């Protein structure tokens, strides 16, 4: 029993290993490898010898652009883990590289594997035994539970709103078409072709924009967990606002305004950050403020990166030192803020520190020097001093996959309209597009269409 579709996934935990593997399994594996892999002379390889490692590079077939150098191995079924034709690409382990590599493979017709699906196939094809199968079920269960927990949270608020609006607009058109097809004798307005074409174009543009941001990662709900800490009124909220470019955190001159923490999802040079603005750390007897500070310490423990803020306009004090001595063993960037004001902080005694931690000076209020901070974050990620979680990369890939499928469907619908094909054909593409988006929002389409038809139109005799 061989499955009809070909699946792919990143087979190693992203960012934590020097080598990363993208694994492809299914009947189209070797075909995909032929399309995306070139040997060291940049020639296409027509014949992959079984179980022989080939050195070469993975390219984007449409543009010829090089993704990364890689080793490629072909394991024809049934002599493979899944008993299907399997291709593995071994490349550098960086999260961005692996994601690009996986995306290239997916664009060639593979489908992103579900949790545990390689092992599931191995089992269903008679490869592994019952005991191992139990383990697979555990994996599927655990991942599914985690996915369910995160399903709605995985999408940032803005994104889920956009997706929902997108889906609703498509569903609306589909329902209009379906109603007119199923009720030709009722007096309902026929779908207006000009408006339909315009809607398709608009939604394609929306998806394009989403895809652009998705490519660079902002679409992630989960990102590199980055915690901004510092004593009160050092400018933490201002820095957050500067980074996200809008007034999100409440900023005043009164120390201790941010009593709870604020989380935002931003994208810095292609790196998704889940950025947390915390309550300032100082001695305080205010109970609520104390609670806030307690939480801040909690955030520090779970952070992937800490931005430790100092105030350049004030001398370094006990509160700063207390935080410094309390820093967990997590990558830290020291951010000297308020360089627009007269500088009073004497950083000479911190020289040793600057050897331990990178230091960057900026003015969050004037938004100067931010580029240097962004560059520093980028360097840390690429040098793999900090790690992105593999799950978040996969989620992102899934989102890109679904959005791309939806976009392809809308384009097909649009082209069919141009070719004067009837609306029942257009409906096939629209339905497929909504289905693809439904994989992100977790909704199915079939029953909903019927429900909506009767909610929207007065039909029937």
């Amino acid at each position, binding site marked *: 029993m061989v499955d*009809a*579709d070909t699946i792919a996934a990143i087979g190693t935990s992203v960012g934590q290993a020097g080598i990363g593997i993208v694994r492809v399994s299914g009947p189209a594996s070797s075909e995909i490898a032929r399309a995306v892999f070139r040997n060291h002379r940049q020639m296409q390889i027509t014949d992959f010898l079984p179980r022989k490692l080939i050195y070469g590079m993975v390219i984007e077939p449409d543009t010829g652009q090089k993704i990364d150098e890689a080793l490629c191995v072909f394991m024809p079924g049934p002599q493979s883990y899944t008993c299907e034709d399997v291709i593995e690409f071994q490349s550098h382990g960086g999260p961005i590289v692996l994601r690009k590599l996986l995306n290239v493979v997916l664009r060639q017709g593979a489908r992103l594997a579900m949790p545990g699906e390689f092992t599931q196939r191995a089992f269903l094809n008679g490869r592994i035994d019952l005991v191992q199968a139990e383990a697979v079920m555990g994996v599927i269960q655990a991942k599914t539970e985690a996915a369910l927990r995160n399903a709605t949270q995985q999408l940032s608020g803005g994104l889920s709103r956009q997706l929902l609006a997108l889906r609703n607009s498509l569903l609306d058109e589909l329902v209009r078409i379906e109603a007119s097809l199923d009720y030709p004798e009722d007096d309902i307005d026929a779908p207006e072709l000009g408006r339909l074409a315009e809607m398709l174009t608009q939604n394609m543009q929306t998806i394009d924009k989403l895809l652009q941001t998705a490519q660079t990662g902002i679409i992630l709900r989960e990102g590199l967990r980055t915690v901004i800490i510092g004593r009160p009124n050092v400018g933490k909220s201002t820095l957050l606002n500067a980074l996200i470019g809008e007034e999100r955190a409440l900023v005043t001159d009164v120390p201790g305004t941010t009593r709870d923490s604020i989380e935002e999802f931003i994208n810095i040079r292609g790196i998704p950050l889940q950025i947390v603005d915390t309550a300032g750390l100082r001695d305080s007897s205010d109970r609520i403020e104390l609670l806030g500070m307690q939480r801040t310490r909690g955030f520090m423990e779970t952070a992937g990166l800490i931005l430790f803020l100092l105030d350049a306009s004030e001398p370094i004090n006990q509160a700063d030192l207390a935080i410094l001595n309390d820093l967990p063993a997590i990558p830290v960037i020291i951010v000297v803020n308020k360089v627009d004001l007269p500088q009073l902080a004497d950083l000479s005694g911190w020289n040793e520190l600057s050897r331990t931690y990178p230091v960057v000076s900026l003015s969050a209020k004037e938004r100067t020097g931010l580029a240097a901070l962004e560059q520093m974050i980028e360097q840390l990620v690429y040098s793999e001093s900090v790690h992105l979680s593999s799950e978040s990369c996969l989620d992102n890939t899934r989102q890109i996959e679904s959005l791309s499928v939806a976009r392809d469907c809308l384009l097909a619908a649009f082209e069919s309209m141009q070719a004067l094909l009837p609306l029942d054909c257009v409906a096939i593409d629209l339905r497929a597009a909504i289905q693809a988006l439904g994989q992100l929002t977790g909704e199915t389409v079939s029953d909903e269409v019927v429900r909506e038809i009767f909610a929207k139109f007065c039909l029937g005799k």
Partner: protein
Amino acid sequence: MSFSAQYEVIVLGAGHAGCEAALAAARMGCSTLLITLNIDNIALMPCNPSVGGPAKGHLVREIDALGGQMGVAADLASLQMRMLNTAKGPAVHALRSQADKLVYQKVMQQALYNETNLEVRQLLVEGLVWEGFVIKGIITETGECIGCEALVLATGTYLRGRIILGDKSYVGGPSGQRSAVELSRALIEAGVQLRRFKTGTPARIDRRSVDFSKMKIQPGDDATHNFSFISAITQREQQPCWLTYTSETTHRLIRDNLYRAPLYTGNIEGTGPRYCPSIEVKIVNFPDKESHQVFIEPEGLSTNEMYVQGMSTSLPTDVQLAMLRSIPGLEQARIMRYGYAIEYDCIDPTQLDLSLAFKRFRGLYAAGQVNGSSGYEEAAAQGLIAGINAALHVQEKSPFILSRAEAYIGVLIDDLVTKGTNEPYRIMTSRAEYRLLLRHDNADLRLTKRGFSIGLVSPERVARTEHKIEAIEAITETLKRVFVAPTAEVQQLLLALGTTELKTGICLYDLLKRPAVSYAAIQATFDLPELSVEVQAQLEVMIKYEGYIKKQIEQVQRAANFESKLIPQEIEFNDVSGISNEARQKLSIIKPVSIGQASRISGVSPADISLLLIFVEQWRRRKNGDA
């Protein structure tokens, strides 16, 4: 228990489901008894005098291709035929026919009476005879016991039927008939779960009291159509329908009298269909709509009754008359029969498997409105399948099941038994995911052989279909072979057809892909053979929509992977670990036969399916004793 008679198959109810069920069982060689409450009301159309429409017309074609009777009867009884949706794509083209109700009944009665293995009797059934979970026969109100090996329930709206009209209500079936009250109790006692649905019908008015000059005429098509692939009717005199609209006064009258409407006073508990709303529901749910269409349709040539489509109601009789008379053309209308609502018992269809057999019993089948569907066509389709499977059960053969990719009948039955329904279920083209493959024009190509395999379709008919397939294949090959050069003559022809000139030479096959180019238009120019209308139509659909047909075939193939993974009957769904409670519960009730069917159950997620797949494989290995 001593039986006065013994049949292989008994069918309870002689409506649209019962007639098809009885005919199918008898034609498949089973001694069959069809029981009805009233022989004069066989194949009665208690509601609208029409057959077909989108998806419903598809069902009729499919019934016909499988050797059923509805298509032939509808063709003979037709007062008017129209092809709907012609401006839209081929998937949704559909035939609709106005039927002469009395002729339809007569035609269907003739078919029943002419069937060798079939007997028809007028009886009221009050009890069932069981041997454990195996059905053995029925008991009538006079105490007569009749034995059977398989029983098809096709009780329509007659189970504990209750008619509601204004503040009056009484026990009864449609059109003043009896209702089967005791049978409901017998089913509950046996452990069948019943529920209550509601439907309704508008008033019928006297043709002579209608002023047609104030209405828009709705004639039939000039071309003569037939549902049946074997009907030879080439000409038919047609009766028009008439279109008018509700007025402001109509809406005010209804709103003013809502306090007397059983739907809103709580006098009706049953769930009504959304797609067949009564006029009071339409006014309440869509208050902004200033006017609703009203079609006046003839019920037959031998009656003065006209059906007022769009005005289904259970309002009191005085309101019914007043509101009809507020409609242009109906100012003088005389009502011959009042509209009414009817509540009835039906079963939760998830108690059935895909062959329409009850999962917990042996030999008991159900079809039609009793399964929670509505519509003559939906009923007939289920009746045919239930009849076939009752016969196959008697003959100890495996059941006949059509898939969602094969037929609307497959969609209908899978929807009912896999998803269940909370309201009377109506088939719609939007319920079929492979709509472009399930066209009404190719029902014969899809199903004739399937009908032949169970003995319902004659060899002549198979030959006819094969001949059609050969003709299509031959002409397709020709069209692919013949190349057209961009000569002056060709360019002129193309411009005349309203399409653009050729840039390079192409084959005729590709030329036909252009929407403006039909086979008939190029036939003479390129010296192509004369083709029958059906072959031409088939050819053009296949060429013009080739891309989308391919797309849908690919969708079917992707799904086939799941559909072909069967779940052994012995599996205990309660033992599947890791899946959600809702999924486990639903799986235990529905007992899907394939992973594909399981995946369509609401509340069963893709992850649940993954786990189920592994569970099934584990079970299989344990059973085979390998690790």
